[in-house]
């Protein structure tokens, strides 16, 4: 990636610790992780299975709670045990793309993209429809706005999920193996859509991936091993 990020920190974590499991199977997954994500920069986390990549992603996305350490969004520390605050921050500042698209099967592509906007409630219905249409056209799905997820291919479903993640123009985009379920052609298409749109809008993107080609295309690659980033 050749474009230069504006070096404004969108998300930072300091000294994150997290265990998973119970009793004898309890594992110390994250052992004091530090990370900064900059606006307009696409970062990748690579590493072996079970090293804590996805766990870190969910913590950074406020979907889970760390046992120790702090997370800062737009340089403001996120309080640890405030589910309401976490939900508001997710709504406004964070977009997620998962390995599986997780589209709501009862809603069309456009309606799925509108779901985050309807929750945020800053746009009128017409504005939401226009924005959803624009996002879907950007990822070349302008002719499939009203199709249900079941009427789309795997790659198309994942691209709709990307449009949905970008719906509220979040400053942070977190993607957990976004191409893990796709073939090579669709993987590249999804990755291109994700990074192009994020860069255009100056968003900080963090991708967890096992795909070395995808990792190489990112501005920065972070290798995680045994719960810590390795230089």
């Amino acid at each position: 990636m050749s474009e230069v990020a504006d070096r404004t920190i969108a998300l930072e974590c300091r000294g994150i610790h997290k265990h998973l499991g119970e009793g004898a199977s309890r594992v110390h997954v994250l052992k004091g992780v530090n990370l900064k994500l900059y606006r307009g920069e696409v970062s990748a986390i690579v590493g072996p299975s079970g090293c804590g990549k996805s766990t870190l992603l969910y913590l950074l996305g406020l979907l889970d709670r760390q046992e120790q350490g702090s997370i800062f969004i737009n340089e403001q520390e996120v309080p640890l045990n405030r589910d309401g605050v976490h939900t508001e921050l997710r709504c406004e500042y964070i977009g997620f793309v998962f390995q599986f698209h997780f589209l709501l099967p009862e809603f069309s592509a456009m309606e799925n993209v509108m779901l985050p906007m309807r929750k945020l409630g800053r746009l009128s219905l017409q504005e939401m429809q226009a924005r959803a249409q624009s996002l879907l056209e950007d990822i070349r799905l302008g002719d499939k706005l009203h199709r249900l997820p079941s009427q789309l291919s795997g790659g198309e479903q994942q691209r709709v999920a990307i449009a949905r993640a970008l719906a509220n123009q979040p400053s942070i985009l977190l993607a957990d193996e976004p191409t893990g379920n796709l073939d090579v052609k669709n993987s590249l298409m999804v990755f291109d859509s994700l990074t192009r749109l994020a860069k255009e809008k100056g968003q900080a993107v963090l991708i967890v991936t096992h795909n070395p080609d995808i990792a190489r295309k990112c501005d920065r690659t972070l290798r995680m091993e045994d719960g810590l980033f390795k230089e």
Partner: protein
Amino acid sequence: MTPSIAIAVRFLLAKKRSMLMSLTGISFGVAFFIVTQAQVSGFKEYFIDTVLATDGAIRISDKMQPIMTSLEASTTEGGKSSFMVGNRENYRFIEGVEFPNKIIESIRELPNVYAASPVVTGNVYIRGPLRNGSGFVYGISLEDHLAVSALEDQIIEGTVDDFRSTPMGILIGSKLAARLQARVGDSLLVQAVDQRSRFHVTGIYETGVSEIDKVRVFLHIGQARSLLKRPHGASFIQVSLFDRSKAPSDAQAIENLTRHFAASWQEREKSWLQFFYVIGLSAAITVSAILLTSGLGMFNTLAMIVMEKTREIAILRSMGYTRRDISNIFIWQGMIVLILGSMIGFSFGAAMTYGISNIPIGVRGIFTAERFVVNWSLLHYIYAALVATVVVLFASLAPARRAARLVPGDVIRGTAS
């Protein structure tokens, strides 16, 4: 439409068959609740109307004489009190009303009293043209009595004018007339203890209450006094009210004012009223079982949806939907079924109530009814909706809480791995 409602509608439509079953159950439950209450309260209201049309709202009868000291509060120099604390156990009762006109004059001061009629009663033996039988005389002042009863409307043969214009006229109940084989225009010999007189049947009435129609006869009060050798006083005073529901407090006020025993219709008919109450309650409980069963079905369906939609719930949470939003999605599903079910139930219930009111039956006994008696009351619809609301709320709250408690990270991690 809020996003929670929009999602609730789509989730519901995705489970059409299960939700249709719940909807049908709620609709039937609401409809049957309305129909049963309409019938029970219909018969109850009809019974009350019959009682009031026949025996009035209040009866003032025996004089109450204190046998123990009772507390009186005097506010005037003369010591006349309008306030007295006591109960009926502290009195002995002297039969009849000695000065009915004075009492009627004093109770007319009460704002809810519409009219009052003195009545002289006594047992008689009646000899008809073909057969004989016992009867019970009501000596009435006709104009007064028409104001405290529906006697005029109850006359099925002859007219009240014939009775008015015939000093020796007699009105007899339909069942007594049948027993005596007497008709309008016949002459009856009415015999009291040591007095007898001949009367002309000027009318046959029917209250619908068998016990009344087979013994009660109406005479002009003067003739009754002469026959029963009771030249003054009255056996009781029948009182009608503007607002029948206030009869117990008015009866108490009359007792305090006149020191005569006064019984409201609610006190006189307590056992029948309790019977109707129990029947109504029993019907409501039975029909609520239908609603409860539907509620269980709905609980099942919603619990299934929560289990099937954990990923969707997690993704909604990741987008910024709060626990309350998630909870509302499931509560709204219940509410949509409730609103639709209640609307359908209201319509179906009203249609069934109308249909039932046209079914011919021949009820005889405590009242007479040719068709099913129903009571059209908005309260039945409100109560039915309330019961359905409670059931649906219980059915949707537990799945809603479970959905709201899901931790999105756990769900997504579990699925992804």
